[in-house]
């Protein structure tokens, strides 16, 4: 083997890689927050909404879950401009990630909602609480708490799949790694280190999401 | 020489002392029934005999040789010591015949044809020959337990352990299983049972062992233990049994 590994080239460009990682984190965190909102709305619609709403959500979920994320990105970035909706690369990436996460997360949240004992809802109704109040206090909080591990996994999956948005030249870690690799011809070393950075981010997100769980769900609340 | 000799077996689970200095000897052909309240250590003792649990101290001798907990020794031991569990533990993906022939063919290298003959024979002993092609899910609890007994017998063991095998059965199904136990005892099988079936114990056991809080409290033939209990614990245990099943009153004392 005549190839000499030169990782020092990578270390020279570490600041740029770290900046890419930061962009990935920002992009993913925003998509997670927005996607969760979409998920909660859709979960509510699917479990408690009128028939057309339930059907609409079902179609949305099945379409997203049975088509590749990459194709979804292409549609948001390349196909939409044809009907007048032109998005920047990063915006298209965010929209695609939010829509994608929303579909998967809505199923997870819906499972959490359906795990709430029906007696609790009846008791709340008997106490005179309005529908939205019931949802906010009795349903959504315990539901998210129950399915938090599954949501965490889905979030991390989202962060990892963000690497694919590099194909439409959105700026994040993979895109930056691509350009560095092609200019220095040290592809293997750069991708190797970038992979390590993703692994670190995955662990970091897991820790961060655990901390959020503690802060939100474990402190004694009057709920 | 006893077939099985347990000397000063001690075992604790965390803070709980499950067994304390328990000694027991079982002669070939002897039927030993271990009775006592739940938590008295009966099942733990039984599971030590074939290596499912391991004592902290004390020795176990089978056929004159001491146990070591090596996989090879345990494998060799389990060819000679069979066990029937409270929840039968039949293999649900195999039919009755295959449940029975698996041990002899895969572990003892018996030829399948000979194993199938053996399966018929042991199923005859438990009155279930007609169910040879059925699957466990299609059988009642009592039938499954009898198949479990047949499965243990197919290994042609020298000692069979029974861990409260009627405890999970509906009352009307207990009789068919106890009949099999009586037959096995009559035919000279060496048996150690943890049981609540006092009728069987009185009828077919040679020795009753009463355990309480991890120790052997009393040991002796049924007439002596049931007729003249020495300790207050055994007396109150018998009383408790009688209050549950008044029919026992006719037989005891």
């Amino acid at each position, binding site marked *: *083997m*005549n*190839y000499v590994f030169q990782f020092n080239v990578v270390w020279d460009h570490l600041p740029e890689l770290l900046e890419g990682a930061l962009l990935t984190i920002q992009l993913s965190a925003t998509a997670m927050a927005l996607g969760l909102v979409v998920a909660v709305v859709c979960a509510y619609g699917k479990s408690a909404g009128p028939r057309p709403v339930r059907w609409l959500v079902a179609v949305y979920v*099945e*379409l997203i*879950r*049975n*088509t*590749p*994320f*990459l*194709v*979804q990105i*292409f*549609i948001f970035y*390349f*196909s939409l401009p*044809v009907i007048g909706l032109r998005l920047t690369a990063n915006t298209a990436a965010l929209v695609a990630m939010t829509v994608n996460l929303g579909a998967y997360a809505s199923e997870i949240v819906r499972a959490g909602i359906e795990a709430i004992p029906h007696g609790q809802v009846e008791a709340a109704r008997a106490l005179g609480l309005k529908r939205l109040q019931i949802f906010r206090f009795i349903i959504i909080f315990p539901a998210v708490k129950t399915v938090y591990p599954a949501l965490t996994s889905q979030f991390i999956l989202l962060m*990892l*799949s*963000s*690497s*694919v948005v590099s*194909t439409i030249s959105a700026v994040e870690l*993979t895109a930056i790694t691509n350009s560095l690799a092609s200019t220095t011809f040290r*592809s*293997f070393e750069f*991708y*190797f280190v970038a*992979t390590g950075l*993703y*692994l670190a981010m*995955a*662990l970091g997100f897991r820790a961060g999401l655990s901390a959020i769980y503690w802060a939100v769900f474990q402190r004694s609340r009057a709920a | 020489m006893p077939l099985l000799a347990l000397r000063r077996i001690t075992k604790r689970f965390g803070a709980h002392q499950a067994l304390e200095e328990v000694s027991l000897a079982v002669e070939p052909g002897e039927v030993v029934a271990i009775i006592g309240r739940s938590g008295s250590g009966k099942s733990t003792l039984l599971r030590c005999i*074939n290596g*499912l649990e391991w004592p902290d101290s004390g020795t176990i001798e089978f056929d004159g040789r001491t146990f070591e907990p090596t*996989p090879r020794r345990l494998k*060799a*031991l*389990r060819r000679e010591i*069979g*066990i029937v*569990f409270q*929840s*039968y*533990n*039949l*293999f*649900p*993906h195999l039919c009755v015949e295959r449940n029975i022939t*698996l*041990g002899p063919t*895969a*572990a*003892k290298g018996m030829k399948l044809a000979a194993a199938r003959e053996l399966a018929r024979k042991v199923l005859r002993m438990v009155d279930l020959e007609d169910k040879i092609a059925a699957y466990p*899910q299609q059988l009642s*609890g009592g039938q499954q337990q009898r198949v479990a007994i047949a*499965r243990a017998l197919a*290994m042609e063991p020298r000692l069979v352990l029974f861990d409260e095998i009627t405890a*999970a059965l509906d009352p009307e199904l207990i009789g068919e299983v106890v009949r099999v136990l009586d037959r096995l005892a009559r035919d000279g099988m060496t048996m150690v049972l943890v049981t609540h079936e006092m009728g069987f114990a009185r009828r077919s056991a040679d020795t009753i062992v009463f355990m309480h809080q991890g120790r052997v409290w009393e040991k002796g033939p049924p007439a002596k233990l049931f007729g003249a209990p020495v300790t207050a614990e055994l007396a109150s245990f018998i009383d408790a049994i009688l209050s549950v099943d008044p029919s026992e009153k006719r037989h005891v004392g």
Partner: protein
Amino acid sequence: MGRSFGTGEFLFLLRAIPSTLLLSLGALTGGAIVGLFVAILRIVPSRPLRWLATGYIELLQGTPVLMQLFVTYYGLAVLFKIQVDAWPAVLLAFSLYSGAFLGEIWRGSIEAIPRAQWEAAACLSLSFLKQLWYVILPQAGRISIPPTVGFAVQLIKNTSIAAIIGFVELTRAGQLMTNTTFKPMIVYPIVAALYFILCWPLSLLAQTLERRIDATLGIKTHY
């Protein structure tokens, strides 16, 4: 300018489907071998072996598939000094990826088998491997079918990522057609629809099997 999107272009897309399916099938097969190995390593009595298997799973589940592709592709080129064809690199990368996920699924199935089954087999004096072969794996296999089919859907979608390194499967074919017809509003939705036709029946199958296994498992484990 650009060609119009007609039957010829549509057939081009259709002709890429076998590549997608072949890659999926190949990766599933390779992954099955790796996965079985990994699953068993996760439950053996030896701790170092268990950690090895766990590390492998964490690595492949905690990094983007695209990165795994790049590292494999450039890694192979580096190790064997030749420009590897797309097929071997892609097949290897997706097999290793599948192996990690299938290994996790199958380990879960094995651990779902009650301890009592292991004990009953051991008390018939069967060795560990024989317990696995005659008693545990047949039962675990049955339980593992729905999630395995579910993963197959995931795999088919993920093969789209191979397009990024130029491997011609359905998504790449879509890119090529867009480049010649300049009609992304037609091409990409059609590509999405084709994936949907491939994936949705499998998704439904996985759900049906899941319900059926749950039903029979109720009878099986009830003694």
